[in-house]
């Protein structure tokens, strides 16, 4: 099987609804520093069920898009700067807090059948899973992924920024654990 495209809504630096893709057998993601490349990888990881602490966020609400608004009064010095750079005040605290978001992966299995995996964050911070549009429990969702050989617990197919060198020098215990998870 393979990943065909991604649809995101208010996920990290991706505001509103956006379709990303299509992806081919060898697709490269490019762009300047801070553009949102690793956030795209976070979106793929999120939709597969990876926890938010592995996505550079302390809680799920950090994964929802937040606009330009200044948060604390410590920023008043910064706010002045933002205004004089002509940045509009986009987001007040209220809007940001009530925003929901999701990531949907459109996947094609080995027989060419399309599957849709969707993971969303509701406005009160709950997480919902949908498989081909129908709401399901996490275990059912993860089973469907495992049937496609996507073992999220082992995560040997996701290499986050900066992790590659540690993989070669991981401890023997960790390597055993990884092999155990895939066997």
């Amino acid at each position, binding site marked *: 099987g*393979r990943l065909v495209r991604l649809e995101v809504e208010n996920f990290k630096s991706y505001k509103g609804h956006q379709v990303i893709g299509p*992806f*081919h057998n060898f697709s490269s*993601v490019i762009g300047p520093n801070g*553009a949102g490349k690793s956030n795209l990888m976070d979106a793929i990881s999120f939709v597969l069920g990876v926890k938010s602490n592995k996505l550079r966020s302390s809680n799920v609400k950090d994964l929802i898009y937040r606009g330009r608004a200044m948060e604390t009064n410590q920023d008043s010095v910064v706010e002045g700067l933002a205004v004089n750079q002509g940045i509009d005040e986009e987001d007040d605290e209220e809007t940001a807090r009530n925003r929901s978001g999701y990531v949907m992966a459109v996947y094609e299995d080995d027989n060419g059948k399309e599957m849709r995996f969707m993971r969303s964050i509701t406005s009160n911070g709950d997480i919902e899973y949908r498989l081909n549009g129908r709401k399901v429990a996490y275990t059912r969702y993860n089973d469907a992924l495992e049937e496609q050989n996507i073992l999220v617990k082992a995560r040997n197919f996701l290499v986050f920024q900066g992790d590659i060198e540690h993989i070669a020098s991981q401890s023997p215990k960790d390597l055993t654990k990884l092999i155990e998870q895939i066997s």
Partner: protein
Amino acid sequence: RYKLFYDAFSHIQGKIDQIYKDLTKSQAFPLGGTAYLSLEDSEEPYLDGIKYHAMPPMKRFRDMEQLSGGEKTMAALALLFAIHSYQPSPFFVLDEVDAALDNANVAKIANYIRDHANEKFQFIVISLKSSLYEKAESLVGIYRDQQVNSSRTLTLKLNDYEE
């Protein structure tokens, strides 16, 4: 449980050396390097550690810690691809794994991915180096749209991929 573990271990052990050779061979060193796994205690393998050893071409046997940044990256990729050969996930997502690699090693990785990417083994590779991303079948370009303060994407199919 022991049997499953042992199957995985011996499969990976059987593949790792060839994959590492494919990644490290060059005109200067046509044989490439050497890599293997060893069990710290072969009585009860799943209780103990698996040690990974990799030797770049023409270098002596040394602790993994003493390898250079680029040498470690190549060894790590070989290990990941060897594990994949046992348990093939449909796709890989790699985020700037080429950061520590010199141009020669970037080219080796790019060629390896081109040779192995197919309908059942998809690669999504984030990279800042043109010598890697120009080898891809398509590009997903990400930019920041300052007006709306958001990331935006566009895709581009690279025609010469059919080469």
